[in-house]
């Protein structure tokens, strides 16, 4: 592979109780690509991200980010959790949430100041949310909340981003804004790993594909991996979403 691997996952296994959620995953992700992680519900997509970021314990395996353990590379990594993972009735506004992206670099005991505030405004602007800076977060629509989370990740100024289901439950305008943002990040040479649900839009939005169903099915460029055979192996008999002709045209495009 000509590109440097930004993420290298070796023999990763994760289990909740007795049940393995990820089984023996070996994966290398290239730099500067927009990467989609795709698979059915319960395939371990979010788990893959969380285990990579040390958010949940690994039963086995190791992860390297830019050649070193995550704990040494945190400053290079941005994270967008699922929108539903927090209580949006928390008493705060959009700008304040975005400023949380800078906390890791402020240091203990210190408070974010004017510079952090301006930086956070700048990040909100990039997701088209500048007008909502002072809005109480429960008063935002689902799509706007998602964009606030993206702006918070931008505020981390990372080289590698992990986004957990950013396209779920958002309006068309937000979807557009996220796609523009992803391309913008790619143009800056950054790598973005996105848990994604929608097979139809995947080839248009992303360069690189990881097909997952507890085990790794395939990983690589769309031309190599987005085949009816791989999709059937990923989704099993339930794969009636796409007819094979449309897959073929996408692949030859």
């Amino acid at each position, binding site marked *: 592979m000509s590109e440097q691997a930004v993420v290298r996952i070796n023999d990763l296994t994760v289990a909740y*109780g007795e049940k393995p959620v990820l089984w023996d995953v070996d994966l290398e992700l290239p730099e500067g690509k927009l990467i989609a992680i795709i698979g059915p519900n319960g395939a371990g997509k979010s788990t893959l991200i969380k285990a990579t*970021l*040390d*958010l949940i314990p690994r039963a086995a395996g190791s992860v390297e980010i830019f050649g070193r353990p995550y*704990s040494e590379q*945190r400053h290079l*990594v941005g*994270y967008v*959790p699922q929108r539903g*993972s*927090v*209580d949006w009735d*928390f*008493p*705060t*506004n959009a700008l*304040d*949430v975005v400023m*949380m992206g800078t*906390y*890791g670099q*402020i240091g*203990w*005991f*210190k*408070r*974010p100041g004017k510079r952090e505030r301006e930086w956070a405004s700048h990040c909100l602007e990039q997701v088209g949310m500048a007008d909502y800076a002072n809005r*109480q977060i429960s008063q935002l629509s689902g799509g706007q909340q998602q964009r606030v989370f993206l702006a*918070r990740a931008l505020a981390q100024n990372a080289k590698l981003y992990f986004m957990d289901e950013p396209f779920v439950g958002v309006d068309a305008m937000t979807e557009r804004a996220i796609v523009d943002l992803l391309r913008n990040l790619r143009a800056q040479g950054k790598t973005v790993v996105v848990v994604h649900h929608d097979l139809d839009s995947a080839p248009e939005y992303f360069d690189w594909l990881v097909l997952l169903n507890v085990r790794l099915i395939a990983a690589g460029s769309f031309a190599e991996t987005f085949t009816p055979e791989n999709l059937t192996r990923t989704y099993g008999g339930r794969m009636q979403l796409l007819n094979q002709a449309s897959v073929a045209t996408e692949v030859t495009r």
Partner: protein
Amino acid sequence: MIQLLYDLVFNYTLRNVALGSALLGIVSGVLGCFAVLRRQGLLGDALAHAALPGICIAFLLTGSKSPIVLLIGAGIASWLGTLLILRIVNDTRISEDSALGVVLSVFFGFGIMLLTFIAKRNDANQAGLDKFLFGQAAALVASDVALMALLGGVALLIVVLLYKEFKLLTFDPGFALSLGYNTRQLSVLLTSLIVVAVVIGLQTVGVVLMAAMLIGPAVAARQWTNRFSTMIILAGVFGALSGLSGALLSVTQTRIPTGPMVILSMTAITFISIIFAPNRGIFWDWLRRKRHGKNYLQKAMNEWDTQRAAKEGRL
């Protein structure tokens, strides 16, 4: 009124009771905000109940009824209860509310058993431990208040220093973890501070009513503001107000004991806040719905009537 102010400054008992209750109100109000927003309102209840066996064991071991000794025992038992709850939640599939319930009842039951055991020993010194059940603010002396101020001051100082970290932990612990914060340690620290608030409250409102001191001010404060920092300050103010007014009412006006009176004052503040606070108050909601709902429905029905009449007229 002037007499009341005069008493507040110069009457030894009244001053201690009022100061102690107000102090408790501030500390539990501030820390209660974190507990409520983390959806751990019951945690304070469990921790308070868990303190009871600690008080009894401290007395059995030392034979002393000095508040410092008993409160240290309370703090240790309550803290052990905390660790047990965190352990249960992390290591088993038991949900947090069940873990809280189990620890609360087991510790409290054990505490009541010890209380009975101590009462039956016919020890002349044993009287008065049961005051920790419902509190006995009237028995507060100056050194108790000083101890409360010291503990509370340290707890509040830590909240001020770690404000940013605690706020992030409360809003989005997963993100905090990804930034490299040790969220488990932060969680234990924050819960330990709630233990401190509980210990401060044991002499005044007692183990049974303590949870209300943590939950009430925070719930009331949330109604008036959409800013976290304002909410914390407001909760402290509401806590102090209810402590003060409860103490004054119980000492001067009625024969109601202080602890329950403080809780009743606070309930009044919370009740008013839930109903009448601008924006979030349910009264305004109800008013809006009543006015609009009725209008819309009436309008729709009127329109339907005229349409139907027109149709029938044509036919």
